């Protein structure tokens, strides 16, 4: 497994949101991606996911160039993401929400198998009592869980989680930790975008810092933490929550 | 095609501008509604239609009523209908009582158009009515400018006097509207709400009042354009449908929510229609296709650049 982000630049009109971003992930690990608000973290997610075409540079997934592919193909090739602002299918039940990715990646999937798999995942996420609840009936935190549940159904090799802890109740946070653990155990790679420094330093095996669209540090979290450039750009500021 | 002379072209241009100025007024109403409420009213043309009928009935009931007063009353009537509709059906949207407000507004105003059209068919029947021109012109002959009761010749190019009067009314109303929006406190309040609802409410403007006002003013402008044009066209209860289409075309051309865009778009549409109909190779079909030219331009703009000349995002 390999995800290569090569020299990615992304401009919005005159604004440069990403500047020459280089990042390679070639093994199962948890990568914390941090940076001040507006640094370009979500934009990078969108470029990798195919929502935005990069202005310059290339994205390669398992030795295939994917930056010109539409998002649904990228999803089918094994890259999944959550959205910073949750996007549950509101007028569909939790179960139906979860059936979408399973059916989309596997046209021949048997309905009953899909449902069984979904049930297992719901139990793991302590969520099974809500299987027949509509997306719009869930709390904000539950909608985040639903996105994770859908991701587990999609079962990608690379997962990008955009602010999974923002506005989430502590008990749910535990469940999300459990999810990240499980995915890591399964030998997959996770890019974790978060403002929650405790979580980042607890979970990350590697830390990447974005600032003004450029990567200013990439490496062992403890080393990065000490990096004066990083401290100046980010960690030195108040560690308050942005949301 | 020897009828295509320089004068013919200038005449087409002039007619296009005259009608385009009225279109502009009509579209100004729609763009005002969009900029403040964020919705497109599919019943805009029906208010135009009602404005025309109000004048028709007033002049029938009170033969010697000053036509300009009739136009003002038509504006008042359409304003009131618009306000009532907004309060009953659109206010709940702002309060978050309505699921999926985007679809709601589309279907609801679509239903309103259907409703108003059939109310008028019920009242006046399906037959066209015609209103005589508001004023007769004095007879003049200055060479470059000749006038008779119903027609004006400007450098030998004929223009119907009803059309000229309608355009005059539209220009005055447009000027008043621009003054209102830029110089009065209320007008600026509307602008503020259209730019940033939250900021506006912080400085003490009540956005939901502004919604009602904007919708009423928007329908009033449609009504008054109809009132001004009722002498130019035969009036039927579905006269509003092409008027709606034209307003859509204009605000998309000009950019949804942009007032200068609406005025410019009105001119462009008037001219495109005038030239399209005048220059179409098969004159027997030219009139039938007149409305199609604008729609075609419209469809293309929607596909290529949905934000129009001065657009902002939907």
């Amino acid at each position, binding site marked *: 497994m390999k995800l290569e982000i090569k020299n990615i630049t992304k401009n919005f009109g005159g604004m440069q949101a990403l500047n020459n971003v280089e990042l390679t992930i070639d093994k199962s690990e948890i990568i914390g991606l941090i940076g001040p608000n507006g640094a370009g973290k979500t934009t990078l997610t969108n470029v990798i996911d195919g*929502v935005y075409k990069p202005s310059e540079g290339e994205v390669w997934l398992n030795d295939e160039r994917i930056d010109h592919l539409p998002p649904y193909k990228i999803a089918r090739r094994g890259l999944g993401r959550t959205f910073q602002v949750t996007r549950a299918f509101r007028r*569909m039940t939790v179960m139906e929400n979860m059936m979408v*990715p399973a059916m*989309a990646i596997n046209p021949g999937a048997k309905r009953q198998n899909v449902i069984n798999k979904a049930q297992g995942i719901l139990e793991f996420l302590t969520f099974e009592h809500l299987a027949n609840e509509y997306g719009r009936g869930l709390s904000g935190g539950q909608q985040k869980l639903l996105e994770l549940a859908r991701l587990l159904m999609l079962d990608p090799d690379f997962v990008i989680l955009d602010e999974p802890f923002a506005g989430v109740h502590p008990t749910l946070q535990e469940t999300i930790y459990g999810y990240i653990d499980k995915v890591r155990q399964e030998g997959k790679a996770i890019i974790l975008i978060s403002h929650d420094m405790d979580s980042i330093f607890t979970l990350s095996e590697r830390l990447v810092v974005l600032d003004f669209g450029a990567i200013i540090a990439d490496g062992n979290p403890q080393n990065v933490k000490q990096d004066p450039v990083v401290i100046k750009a980010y960690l030195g500021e108040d560690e308050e929550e942005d949301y | 095609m020897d009828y295509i002379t320089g004068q013919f072209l200038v005449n087409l241009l002039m007619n296009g501008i005259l009608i385009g100025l009225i279109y502009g007024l009509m579209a100004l109403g729609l763009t005002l509604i969009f900029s403040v409420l964020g919705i497109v009213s599919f019943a805009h043309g029906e208010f135009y239609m009602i404005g025309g009928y109000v004048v028709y009935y007033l002049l029938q009931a009170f033969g010697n009523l000053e036509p300009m007063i009739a136009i003002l009353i038509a504006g008042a009537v359409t304003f009131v209908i618009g306000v009532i509709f907004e309060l009953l059906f659109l206010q709940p949207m702002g309060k978050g009582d309505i699921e999926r407000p985007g679809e709601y507004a*589309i279907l609801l105003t679509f239903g309103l158009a*259907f*409703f108003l059209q059939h109310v008028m068919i019920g009242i006046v029947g399906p037959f066209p009515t015609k209103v005589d021109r508001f004023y007769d012109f004095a007879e003049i002959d200055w060479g470059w400018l000749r006038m008779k009761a119903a027609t004006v010749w400007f450098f030998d190019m004929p223009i119907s006097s009803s059309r000229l009067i309608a355009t005059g009314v539209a220009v005055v109303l447009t000027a008043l509207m621009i003054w209102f929006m830029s110089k009065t406190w209320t007008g600026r309040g509307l602008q503020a709400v259209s730019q940033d609802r939250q900021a506006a409410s912080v400085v003490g403007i009540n956005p939901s009042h502004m919604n009602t006002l904007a919708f009423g003013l928007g329908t009033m402008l449609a009504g008054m354009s109809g009132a001004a044009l009722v002498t130019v066209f035969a009036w039927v209860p579905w006269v509003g449908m092409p008027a709606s289409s034209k307003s*859509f075309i204009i605000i998309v051309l000009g950019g949804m929510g942009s007032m200068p865009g609406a005025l410019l778009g009105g001119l462009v549409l008037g001219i495109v229609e005038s030239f399209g109909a005048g220059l179409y190779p098969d004159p027997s079909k030219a009139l039938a296709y007149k409305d*199609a030219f604008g729609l075609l331009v419209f469809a293309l703009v929607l596909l290529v650049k949905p934000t129009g000349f001065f657009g902002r995002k939907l």
Partner: protein
Amino acid sequence: MKRIPIQGVLLVLLLIFAFAFPRIMQGQPYWLYVALQSFFWAMMAASWALLAGYAGQFSFAHIAFMGIASYTSGILGRDLGWSPISGIILGTLMAGLVGVLVGYLCLRLRRTYLALFTIAFSEIVRLIINAEHEFTGGPMGLYMEPLLETTSYVPTYYIMLVALIVSLAIMYAIANSRLGLFLRSIREDEEAAAAMGVHVVRYKILAFVITSMIAGIAGALDHHIIGFIAPNELMIPRMSLVIAMAVIGGTESLISASLGAIFIHFAMEWLQKIPVPASWMPSLRENTATLQQFGLSLGEGYLQTNAWRMVLFGLMLMLTLRFWRNGLIQPLLEKIGRQGVAEETVAKRKFSQEENEIEGTEA
């Protein structure tokens, strides 16, 4: 105890009634004709419900596809001597083909822009048909070869009924398949659906194609039965009627949308001439002038409502949107469905209560 699927029972009863209708209405061909027309509207409303309610594409071009298929078939019959059957098939394919085009063009357009574009498309189609009179018959309309060589409405009634049932069955199957699942996910959130691997482009276009073809076949069949089509049948108010039917029935249920259409079409016919008791006639006759002023007219024993019935449906559409977002029929059907369950539990409880009483454990 087995659960009684009340909805299933109702459906069977409804089908029996529909198939027996020509016998019930023997000697009243007018109502048979009304019924077969209502099936046309039911196909229109249900397919629009699939497109708008399921796939979230609030298109106003539906009536144009109906017209495209009808005109294609009519012109093929007139100029090339095609039989109605082959004309209807080609007309339906034509509607599907144009559906691909419109679906493709609409890919990037959402909500208001989609509505505006489809209205423009629909109007352009109508204006072209109006203008190209050598080809289409223009505003005077186009004669279409009758579907059957009979004046009885019984066979055509069954043809439309079967067409409705088959198209509903197809759409129902689609709605409950993967495709239906994907369409709903696209309706809810295109980007999220794509991130979950859903081929949004393909399914959106497919939704346009399928529903356009159903509108097309409904139109072509119906106009071969009527024997005539004119461009004003493509006018926006007819689209409003389809929408009113689907919304009042319920846009998220195909059967509700089609029942809404059938109900409204019958109501419209009935309201055209409201029967008036003989005792009222004299006083009504005295006020004929007043009635006429309000667009009503008086006949022998009935009151003609003319445009006012449309006013009623326009109002109903607005009120339904405002207060009953799921329509009027859909919640009713859901309630009936639940009623089945509820009754069963009620019955059970009664049963156990009786047991209790027999055992005498209650004081």
